[in-house]
């Protein structure tokens, strides 16, 4: 993390032969520094402004206009807690995320452990099927589930159940990737050691494997939560009406319509939940893996999602 010897080396090289630094931008971190920070500003400033507008006193959604919490809690019928539609969207989003989290995590953990060990016929295709949802465009995924629930499974039909199933289906693959990563880190030795010391197979899973997987399980729970709460396409395709609208669906519907900061307030609340989940995941992961010599936990969590196009 500190200034590395390499950077010093680069600097000395520059002083010795400035020709290189003029001719080539790559040896000149200052140029890159500028690009990076401008990019970071560009990527986050719009969102920060949208959040700031949620605290407006006035009705403008495009400019900063005083301070208040009226678009969150105001007793007018336009605030998040005054407008039943917005409030329902928030509770519905939280309901979906909670259920998806509780279903996808155990399924994904068992699948990951099974796939990691299962060698033999069928394991190759099974691995592909377990990871394919990560790279399937969400539209294709959603169209498939939509047609499934309107034809073959029309007894279930569209609505909350279908939405939960959809969220579980795409987030399970993330759980598989996270848990398998952890299984590789832990290695097969400890399981063999436990068996060697007399623990029967179920005790190996219960007393050794699951405790060692705990950080991955915590990370999975909260990341499924975050994925579900941010999802738009699957929720929209499997919704059955206004009562199954989620927060992203509300934002989508009103982005170009009713110009009131209450939508910003709703988006802000959703973002708050997502970030809380992530910070919690980070802290828990960090706590549970304390003492282990590995890369920073931030990068661990970052790498988890390098397989997701959502």
């Amino acid at each position, binding site marked *: *993390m500190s*200034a*590395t010897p*390499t*950077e010093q*080396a680069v600097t000395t090289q520059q002083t010795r032969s400035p020709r290189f*630094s003029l001719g080539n931008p*790559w040896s000149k*971190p200052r140029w*890159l*520094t500028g*690009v*990076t920070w401008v990019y970071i500003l560009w*990527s*986050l400033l*719009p*969102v920060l*402004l*949208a959040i700031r*507008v949620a605290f407006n006193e006035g009705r403008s*959604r*495009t*400019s900063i206009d005083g301070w208040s919490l009226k678009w969150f809690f105001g007793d007018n019928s336009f605030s998040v807690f005054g407008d039943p539609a917005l409030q329902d969207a928030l509770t519905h989003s939280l309901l979906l995320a909670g259920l998806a989290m509780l279903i996808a995590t155990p*399924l994904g953990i*068992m*699948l990951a*452990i*099974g*796939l990691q*060990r*299962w060698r033999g016929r069928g394991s190759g295709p*099974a*691995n*592909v*099927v377990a*990871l394919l949802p*990560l*790279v399937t*465009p*969400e*539209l*294709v*995924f959603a169209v*498939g589930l939509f*047609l499934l629930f309107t*034809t*073959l499974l029309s007894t279930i039909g569209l609505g909350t159940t279908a939405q939960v*199933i959809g969220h579980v*289906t795409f987030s*399970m693959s993330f759980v598989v990737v996270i848990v398998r990563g952890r299984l*590789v880190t832990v290695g097969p030795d400890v399981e063999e050691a436990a068996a060697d010391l007399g623990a029967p197979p179920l005790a190996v899973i219960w007393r050794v494997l699951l405790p060692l997987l705990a950080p991955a399980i915590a990370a999975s729970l909260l990341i499924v939560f975050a994925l579900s709460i*941010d999802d738009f*396409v699957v929720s929209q395709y499997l919704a059955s009406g206004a009562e199954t609208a989620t927060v*992203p669906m509300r934002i989508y519907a009103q982005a170009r319509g009713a*110009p009131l900061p209450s939508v910003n307030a709703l*988006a802000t609340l959703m973002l708050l939940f997502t970030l809380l989940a992530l910070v919690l995941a980070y802290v828990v992961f960090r706590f549970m893996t304390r003492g282990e010599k590995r890369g*920073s936990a*931030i990068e661990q969590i970052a*790498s988890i*999602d390098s397989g997701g196009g959502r």
Partner: protein
Amino acid sequence: MQKRRIWGFLAAPGMLWLGLFFVVAFYAVISVGLGNINTLYQPIPYWNPLDWNFGYLVQAIESVIPGGQNWPVVVRSVIYITVAITGALLIGYPVAYYASRHAGRWRGLVVVLLILPFWISYIMRMFAWTNLLAPDGYGSKVLSALSIDSLFSSIGLLDGTDWLGGQGITVIIALIYGYVPFFILPLFASLDRIDQRVIEAARDLGAPPPSSFWRVILPMSKPGILAGLVLVALPMAGDYYTQTLMSGSPSTSMIGNTINDYIQGGPDKSLGAAMTILLSVVLLFFMLYYLRSLRRDQGEVAA
């Protein structure tokens, strides 16, 4: 290990779930796309391959070849996606390079800030721009103050001054904005993995910095670049919401909008399913390519 059955037993519930809600769901797309409709224009899926009716698939194929109804949309999608991923590469590479090799003591913070957009809902990030680019929004004002809108107008990239009024350039910039974070992460991972000593060795052997970049760093980060390109191109190919939020005009609609309109619009669900089959076939190659690179990475971790 002794008990092999236990592993298959553990994997079974998840595999059944994915089998039903992923594999069978995709089979439903095929069955509807190769099925028929009833008198109420509702699709009737043909589950038995022997019954398949290729009428809609032929119709879908005819619509996406030159002269077909959806041909302009296909061309537009390809142009938008190509320009957008090029833009994402030009922005993403320097940023990922800086974060992985030069961020020094700021590295932790930079990485967190680069990951952050990842976890902000895509819809919310687009929504933020609809605020900024509204005629009285801060974004429009800044662009106007810098005369960027008149510059873009003069070279024909912008029609009038309303950025949200059906402008192709807005959709492309929004796509870049939306997907750069997904690109930076695989790039960062592959650049970060390059051993600093390899670069020092290149210098030591006499390569000046530009050449050590072109001959060592760039080739070594190629897997990350390709993975990133695929990772970003796949969801763009199925994106309809960016276009709807940033323009909404049929003159900027992409292939995702066409499918979305067919499926959610009403009488053309079978045609929409057939289009989905076509899109999946085209994308399958890229999806498998990415999965392969993902597995190669995991293999390296394991070894």
